[in-house]
């Protein structure tokens, strides 16, 4: 991987307490032109989130002063910044837990530098605004929900709904192919990036998060599940 164009003016908040890993990540970020902000404590990380407005957070799950999952939830309460969780435990249960509290990606230790940089790029791509080159598309309406693809705005009954970039990226992909069934692999590749095609858990968790924010009980679903195949956005 070459020095990413993403790097220019991009700041990464690294929340990690092992000095070796901090050195490893910082060295690789700095050498590629990223700005690295380091915190070895969760509480400090929350402060830095406010003062430094990082573009992405790399969050270690085991911290001396705070549970990583809880910290992830607190970050998501305050910001839609992209969050990649790094865990030395590597259990499926942890993965689902952190995705559920709003993490955008999950990575287990040990990881190679290629993997780290690829995930950072993919998350940044998603969390940055939509492709500015794309032609302005009309606002889509599905039931009470209206989706402003260009402005990245979503309302339900006229009320704005806050979506994280990953949530919006998923919704945008479904909306752009409205009525058409999109396979798990397709959605994963389009939203998270190539290499994520088998991470079906990501998709399940994010579809659930979208449904919770957009669908109403008792009304036909906005996102329709096609068992074992994929999802589609309801045509109306």
């Amino acid at each position: 991987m070459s020095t990413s164009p993403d790097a220019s003016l991009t700041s990464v908040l690294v929340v990690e307490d092992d000095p070796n890993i901090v050195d490893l990540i910082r060295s690789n970020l700095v050498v590629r032109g990223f700005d690295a902000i380091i915190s070895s404590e969760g509480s400090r990380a929350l402060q830095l989130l406010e003062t430094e407005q990082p573009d992405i957070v790399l969050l270690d799950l085991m911290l001396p002063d705070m549970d990583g999952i809880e910290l992830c939830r607190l970050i998501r309460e305050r910001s839609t910044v992209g969050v990649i969780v790094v865990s030395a435990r590597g259990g499926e249960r942890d993965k689902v837990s952190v995705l559920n509290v709003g993490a955008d990606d999950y990575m287990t230790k040990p990881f190679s530098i290629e993997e780290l940089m690829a995930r950072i790029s993919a998350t940044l791509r998603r969390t940055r605004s939509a492709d500015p080159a794309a032609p302005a598309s009309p606002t889509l309406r599905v039931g009470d929900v209206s989706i402003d693809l260009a402005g990245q705005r979503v309302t339900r009954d006229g009320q704005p709904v806050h979506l994280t970039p990953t949530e919006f990226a998923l919704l945008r992909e479904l909306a752009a192919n409205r009525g058409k069934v999109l396979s798990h692999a397709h959605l994963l590749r389009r939203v998270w990036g190539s290499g994520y095609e088998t991470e079906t858990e990501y998709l399940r968790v994010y579809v659930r998060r979208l449904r919770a924010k957009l669908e109403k009980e008792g009304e036909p679903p906005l996102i329709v599940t096609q068992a074992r195949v994929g999802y589609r956005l309801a045509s109306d």
Partner: protein
Amino acid sequence: MAVATMDTRPDGIGPGGPILSARGLAVHFGVVRALDGVDLDVFPGEIVALAGENGAGKSTLVRCLAGDVRPDTGTVTVGRARVDSDAVAARRRGLAVVWQDLALCDNLDIAANLLLGGESRRSLFASGRFYRQARQLLEQLGINLPSLGTPVGHLSGGQRQLVAVARAMRDHPDVLILDEPTAALGVHESAQVEELAAKLPVQGTAVLLVSHDVEQMFRLADRIVIMRKGRVVGQVRPEESHPDEVAGLLSGQPPDGSARSQLSRLDSLAGQLASAEPSSSLSLILSALRAALGEAAVCVHERDGSVLRLAGAAGLTSELARAWGALPLGAGGGQIGRAFSAGREIVVEDVRAAPGWARFGRQARNGGVRSAWTVPLSGAGTAGVMTVLSRETGAPTRDQLSLANVYSGYVAGALERDRLLGELTTRNRVLETIREVLETLAGPVPIEAGLSVALDALRRGLNAEEVALLTSPPPGTGDEAGPGPGGATDGTPEQPLRVLAWSGTGFPSPDLARVVRAVRGAGGRATLEPSRDPGGSAWRVGVEFPAPDGPAVLLVTWTDDAESPSHRLLIEDAANSLRLALEREASERAQREAVALRTSQERQRQFLSFLSHELRTPLTAIRGYASSLMQPDVDWDDGSRQRFLSTIADESSRLGRLVDDLLDFSAIDTGILRLHPDWCDLALVLEAARACLPASAAGLVDLRTPADLPTVWADHDRLEQLLVNLLDNAIRHNPPGTTVVAAVDCDPDGYVRISVTDDGTGLPAEMIGSPFGRRAERRSRTGGAGLGLSIAQGIVSAHGGSFDIERPEVGTRCVITLPVAKGAPADG
């Protein structure tokens, strides 16, 4: 609880004292504490309910109050008089009891039952007056019954209860005890009895109502006294309480599952058996007859082997009772012996003229007896005679003879019943003991210990030589035999049983398993059929029952031919109780195992998670730095490259140590850690350990070893390994700048102490004493310490030493105490 301190004196009751009062009553039956310091007051005009589960001590308390049971300590006062264990005095002072079994004579009519013992000679056959008196009594109490001439055997349970209460009220007692008056009745009949009981205080009779029925107490009683385990645990007034409160006091705890309900059913059985014991009815019948005949004395002799034994008497002088205590059969037993042997009545009209009486009845003659007549007892299964002594000469009237004949039937019945009750009571006591013992097994007592006590009680109750409980071995213990070839004759393989509990007067019979085979006989199942030991004098009875791990056998041995049908019943009951206890034990064991398994799985999960973290952290650094160096597009400066490489080296050796640790840990965990001890110089061990640390870390360690240290018999490599762990922990898990002191000192008792002390933030408190604890869940700066500490502990204990973590004011101190020469060659 407010009610517990309630004044026992009811509202509106005058300053007069209680009509019935018990103070500090205590009664023990063997190991069972039936009453344990009970105080009770019943005031005039009150209805007091006595509540308690079976076995709470209600029946014993009532028997104490009635004078039928002598308390070990304590007093009973009726009116103002002490009547301790004197049933007659208690009655005279105004206490009446209606026992649960009622003690009615089924073949007599209502009137006869009401006035039994109260008839005078004159009124007996003046029927009009007799029935009038009976009717008057019933009317007074507002009782409606069919014709007074109906035999009570034809009455319903409720009507019989009404008759019994009316009879008890005949002499206007001041206080009446009703023992479970409605326990056996339906709703409608219970209501009749309750209606009657509610009226009794108006008649001037206070009531002590023994009941199981909490609702009934709330309907009837002014006060409810609750007993549990032989104590009064509370008193409530119905208007201030709720049945739930009473139920809570009764049980002492919330109901908890099937084991308890099974025990409570067993309880209830024991309770029913216990309450079947009436007051001594034979003496009642004899006093009633004596009063009815208006004669000096009545006595009954029962055949007991080759003699006639005095079974009961009324009005007999103690001299005469001694002389006539046992009489020979036939002429040697005077007119009593002759009447028995001849099977017919013998009348001696003037004892002074009768030739045999000079010797046979001297004491009677001197006591003023002038005539005597003896009639055989008419009753199936009873052999005996009844003798009436009169102060006047002459033959009995026909009326007297027919009355005596009627009563002799009751006497025979009473004798029979007393005999049965005697057996029942013994059986009861044994069952009660077993029940009590098994109930305590619900606590932390190991079941085997409790079972031996239960078997002791059973053995005493059976008067047996030996009682053993044999059970199938639990699965997986290895001593169960597989189905042997051809071992089964009826399709069930004969499984060798092992002795689970035993009680005996001597030593256990050798080879009880063989005895079980003998008892099981051809059917392959012990069925209570007695068998004699081949070549021995012992009789064996076994009963087989299903237990959780397979069949179990309760085996009883007598050396003489003492086994009887009632014993078999007791053995069966006991086997049933034991089965319940074994089942409960098994279910509790299963529950404990499930909990232990869950705990161990949870620990395992935590450990794996922790281990994963410990292995992945150095791996991440190694892989990350290595892949960084391999990036084709990045040109690292020399400083970075050097730093990466040295971290890779350090982290690799850390990982290597971790893998060694893991291998050691599993060796310690599985108990295969082997030491290779030799005489070690601890100063050298410490220096070697420091040398293993990265150079930057080694500089932070200060070694303090005195010059005169003894050499220690230990494994140099293991000690070094453990010190590397401790030093590495101390440096890595503390802020930069922390210094670490490793010191050795020795004490005169042959121990050396090695301490590793840091002045940093140290181990979190929750880690001390629980190296794994929640380590895995929330990482702290102590990563890696958990495994190291466990290994340290394992290595130190393999050396026979001890390992402690102390928290001084600053930092952490790990202290290893090692014996200097434990296990060393003798030439030391």
